[in-house]
């Protein structure tokens, strides 16, 4: 374990200062879509504390296309889980779309994921026994949408990724690129604020990867906010902004387009 990851977190006094006073009053609800303030994520490994994230702060505006890049062990997966509201930080505050999620419980997080975030995973994570249509409907089921509406919206979403003719196919009847497009259709179906992709081309050949990245570009130009987490520089290069993570901290934050 490097010295950097073992660095001490801010003291309790410093963290407490952030929670108090006038400072809170004017930045209570940020205007940015995503707003992370001094985020720490600490894991207890036996008697040692492992700081996966050490004071990360950044904002993402609506309509941005951003990549998070970093070597394995850099903390980018941890950061992705936090952005995706699959986890909560040990310290610091995180707002998405004006909602403070860093203090939410499991069920509140589930609702935020349902409403605000569309996930695209490296291994697609489709339900093997369900058709493409049913996979895309899944977020709408948990959003409490009636089955007629669900069908219609899932159909539209599949059409937007050009899979109208594959709606009744199961994942094992689809190619890798088609599966990832089903996953993207699922991510988009509930009109989330953020499309969050974790190594979206990691399981695809280079030709299909290009196809998927072109799709992301199109989705961005349609007005979607996209964050892609990757360790591949050429995938990151498609984005308009790149945040590099190293040893649990932001090493660089650069706009490239």
């Amino acid at each position: 374990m490097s010295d950097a990851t073992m660095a001490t977190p801010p003291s309790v006094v410093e963290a407490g200062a952030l929670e108090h006073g006038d400072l809170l009053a004017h930045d209570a609800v940020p205007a940015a879509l995503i707003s992370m303030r001094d985020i720490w994520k600490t894991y207890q490994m036996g008697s040692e504390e492992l700081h996966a994230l050490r004071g990360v702060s950044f904002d993402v505006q609506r309509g941005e296309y951003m990549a998070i890049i970093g070597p394995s062990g850099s903390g980018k997966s941890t950061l992705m889980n936090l952005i995706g509201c699959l986890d909560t930080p040990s310290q610091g505050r995180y707002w998405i779309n004006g909602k403070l999620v860093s203090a939410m419980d499991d069920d509140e997080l589930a609702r935020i994921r349902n409403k605000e975030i569309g996930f695209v995973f490296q291994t697609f994570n489709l339900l093997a026994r369900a058709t493409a249509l049913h996979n895309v409907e899944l977020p709408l089921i948990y959003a409490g949408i009636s089955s007629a509406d669900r069908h219609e919206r899932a159909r539209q979403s599949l059409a937007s990724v050009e899979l109208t003719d594959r709606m009744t196919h199961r994942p094992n009847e689809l190619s890798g690129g088609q599966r990832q497009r089903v996953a993207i259709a699922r991510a988009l179906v509930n009109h989330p604020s953020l499309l969050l992709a974790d190594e979206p081309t990691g399981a695809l050949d280079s030709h299909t990867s290009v196809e998927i990245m072109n799709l992301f570009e199109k989705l961005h130009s349609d007005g979607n906010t996209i964050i892609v987490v990757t360790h591949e520089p050429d995938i990151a290069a498609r984005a308009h902004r790149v945040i590099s993570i190293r040893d649990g901290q932001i090493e660089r934050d650069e706009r490239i387009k």
Partner: protein
Amino acid sequence: MTFDDIKESALLAFSTVRANKLRSALTILGVGIGVVTLTFMVSIIQGLNKAFADQIEALGSNTIFVSKFDPSFGRTRPTSEELHRKDLDVDDVEAIRRESPSLESIAPIRRKIAVSVRHLDRQSDSPILFGVTPSYEFTLSQYVGRGRFITDADLSERANVCVLAQDVVRALFPYEDPLDKEIKIGGTPYRIVGVMETLGNFFGQSRDNSIFIPLSSFDKFWRDIEPPEVIFFVIVRPRSRAYVKPAIDEITDILRRRRQVPPRAPNNFGISSQDSLLDFYNQLTGATWLVLTAISFVALMIGGIGVMNIMLVSVTERTREIGIRKAVGATRADILWQFLIEAVVLTGIGGISGLFVGEVASLLMNKYSPLPAFVPVWAIFVGIGISASVGIVFGLWPAWKAARLDPIEALRYE
């Protein structure tokens, strides 16, 4: 949790059941056996109860039985004190008839368990011989079908006449009219003057294997044979059901006085109504009921443990699915319900198939065995309710385990 959600979960559960046919079938079988046991047990007990109530009714409801000792339900034999008591006699009967205002009629009866009867070359050794008076018919609501019953004239003449019940007619006169024929009862010739109506069975035992002769004629030959081969008893018919209790009190007073029972000493005779027969019967089936319920419960427990086992396997196998569902917004309650409903669908299918098998079994039993069986409507609802509860109880822990899964861990699960 809307109806739509439940429908969705139920459809999903059915597709899971279909996807794991053998596994689901075995689990369903476990619960099914539990419910079959339950249904079958209930149907037997209900059948017995119903049959018993019908039979009691048929025996002539509300009659009171008086003899020197109580009929030995649940006991093997009377005590020697009881056997040595003085018998009731015709004077007691006369006193009761005169002094008890609550009774409508009274019938003294002497009964011999088995007599041999013959007509030409046909013979039967099993009939029960009753020495009776004309009041027998009305008191016991057993009537002559053809010919006539025993009359007062028969009684005073000690006539050798008899009335046959249907089984005896079948045994001795399969092809001819028995009226006015002669049969030999224990070697003495009797003329047949009447044939009784059919009474039917009481728990598989025919009630039509009887011969009736005048009480006075009976006493010529069999009066002094010891019980239990020959016993003397009195059947009393009160004015109505409401008079059962007063009649018992009145008769008890009369007999205690006549048999000189000191105050506070117990009766030295037996008196009971059909109600006491029912009471005894209910006690008997109450205990059986408890045992059978316990057995069914154990069977259902075993089925339930099977359900829990398979649901735990299912949760582990579908960890990744749970992770996906949580990632797209399923709350803990959503996941909990999904797996609970799946467990209830499993046990519900088990319950319904169990009920079906139990119902068929009880129908077959009714048809091909002397034991009556009957599935009451409430047992169907109870069966479905219980199997669903088994699903909830045994599905709760696996479902809770699924609901608590961390989405990050679950998505990483291979």
